């Protein structure tokens, strides 16, 4: 495996941070501490991490409603993320976006997205920026198996192909869109094959295997950086929790869950790097412990942070707009 120790350490740390972050949210949601729709990424860590391992801070990423993992892998600040999910003023989006809209444009993270299929067109735009400015920035577009059916996704594939954009489309096929499997929803059953119809290299990979993801991602990113256009990768993975928190998961069997958990991406990573003597157990344990502490710290930070104030309601709608037009026709405001 052509991967440096540093990269391995980084990858393990990111995967642990994601898992820890999501497990903690799961518990805290159940405890009633967190409002709204929360979609957890636990189980899919190898995908976001395997791709982001090849990205620079100035590369771009578009995401989905299930965006925490993408954010963490791209380096969005954990405290800011947690505070955002708690709706606090210190959040990445000042509490205005919440779990489904965490973004950090400075880090190239163009936002989680509540619209299934919202990302692919946006990714083309980021790719177009790089192309027109003549940089070698790359854009990675994550979306789900459900999103693979959305018209906007196909439009994005076509546009990226026509304009030869440096965009990598990553379909995170986690077996379900809410309750619906691609076995039902994807006519033809083969998501990667469909993308081939758009004239781009397209493969399906084991998304539970960090090294498989890392390798495929490396090739795709290099290709995009060389200006050779888009690539499609279907990463086959699994989500451990329900579609969103509160989901009782009546649409799949516990045996299936157990099977996938036996293939856990973090566990397999550990086994591989220890067996191949790339990293030591002690190193790994230390990273896991640090991740636990980092998440605990983020929760403490979020807990202690202030809520946004009434003034914040009307800010950030526009760069500039007459104040009175933010509540037109009325004087009795909140």
């Amino acid at each position, binding site marked *: 495996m052509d991967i440096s120790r540093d990269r391995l350490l980084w990858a393990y740390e990111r995967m642990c941070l994601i898992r820890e972050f999501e497990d903690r949210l799961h518990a805290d949601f159940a405890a009633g501490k967190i409002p709204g729709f929360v979609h957890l990424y636990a189980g899919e860590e190898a995908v976001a991490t395997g791709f982001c391992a090849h990205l620079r801070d100035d590369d771009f990423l578009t995401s989905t409603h299930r965006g925490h993992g993408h954010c963490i892998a791209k380096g969005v600040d954990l405290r800011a993320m947690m505070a955002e999910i708690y709706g606090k003023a210190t959040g990445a989006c000042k509490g205005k976006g919440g779990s489904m809209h965490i973004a950090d444009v400075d880090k190239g993270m163009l936002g989680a997205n509540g619209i299934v299929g919202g990302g692919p067109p946006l990714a083309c735009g980021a790719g177009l920026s790089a192309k027109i400015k003549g940089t070698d920035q790359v854009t990675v577009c994550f979306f789900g198996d459900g999103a693979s059916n959305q018209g906007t996704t196909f439009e994005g594939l076509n546009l990226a192909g026509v304009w030869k954009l440096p965009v990598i489309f990553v379909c995170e096929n986690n077996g379900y869109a809410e309750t619906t499997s691609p076995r039902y929803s994807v006519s033809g059953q083969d998501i990667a094959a469909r993308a081939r119809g758009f004239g781009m290299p397209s493969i399906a990979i084991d998304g539970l295997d960090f090294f498989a993801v890392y390798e495929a991602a490396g090739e795709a990113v290099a290709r995009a950086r060389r200006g050779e256009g888009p690539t499609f990768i279907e990463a086959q993975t699994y989500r451990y929790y329900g579609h969103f928190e509160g989901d009782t998961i009546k649409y799949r069997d516990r045996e299936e869950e157990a099977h996938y958990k036996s293939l856990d991406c973090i566990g397999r990573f550990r086994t591989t790097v220890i067996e191949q003597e790339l990293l030591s157990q002690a190193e790994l344990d230390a990273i896991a412990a640090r991740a636990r502490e980092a998440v605990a710290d983020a929760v403490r930070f979020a807990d202690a942070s202030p809520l946004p104030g009434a003034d914040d309601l009307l800010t950030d709608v526009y760069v500039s707009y007459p104040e009175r037009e933010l509540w037109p026709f*009325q004087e009795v405001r*909140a």
Partner: protein
Amino acid sequence: MTVMVEEAVRTLSYREAINEALRLEMRRDPSVILMGEDVTGASQSDDEAHLDAWGGVLGVTKGLVHEFGRQRVRDTPITESGFMGAGVGAAATGLRPVVELMFIGFMGVCLDQIVNQAAKMRYMFGGKAKIPLTVRTMIGAGFRAAAQHSDSIYSTFVHFPGLKVLAPATPADAKGLLAAAIRDDDPVIFCENKVLYDTKGPVPEGEYVIPLGKADVKRAGDDVTIVAISRMVLHALEAAEQLASQGVSAEVVDLRSLAPLDEETVLASIRKTGRLVVVDEDNPRCSVAGDIATLAATQALDYLNAPVKLVTAPHTPVPFSPALEDLYVPSPARIIAAAQATLG
């Protein structure tokens, strides 16, 4: 179409009332079908244990697949343009589809099929098509669902000729209006406020159909007219209750039918009270709230004793943080202040 109350009145939740209307209309008319994402759940599976795994994202369609089967209660891929258009095409060719657009904020991925196809077909075809399509969709902030899942942007649909738009506030109205929508021969957008699903109220049993286009005076009063929509009706009633204790008699008009507009009922109330407050959770520009003010300005100006007061959401997306979202939605306190302002 008439109001028919056949049996006793029981208490149901808004969710149950909608489910009941769907069930009764599907029983009554085999051409009624239902489709949307996960309206049953797990369509890939033949395992009985998985059937009806969701019954809709918030459980509104639960149980229907057991009675009507997967032919008539259909899960769809995530392709809103595809299945909305399929609803339009099916309506044009003899079915009476009820299509679920999960959240109204998803209109943007399928608007064309609603406003350029369903809404315009009859006119473009010189009256030679009819599109008996019902689109059920969720509106409403307060669910901490953030900017893309919390809109109440029904005014977008109201703007387009060819559509009818309903927004019931109570379980009984939800049942009666949904039945009417399904039986109606024009495309109807039926807006369900997700924050109301667990609210309860008396609902007539059996067949119950409320004619479209009729507002409902939910509380009679003399001093000020409060026109409200969907959940805002509850806030208006709360405000009216408090105003009453201050000696102000507020009339609460539940618009219910946003298109067509019941001008008579609204104007009659304005003429009686001489004062108008409009409460709308939707954003204020080009809104139904503005339409009510416009109605007053064009047709009841001489009756107005005070400037019209609007109480709406701000001209901003819906914020996530509960601290902000609670300020976003018009509160009873704001309604009271607006009503008092009309009284000088």
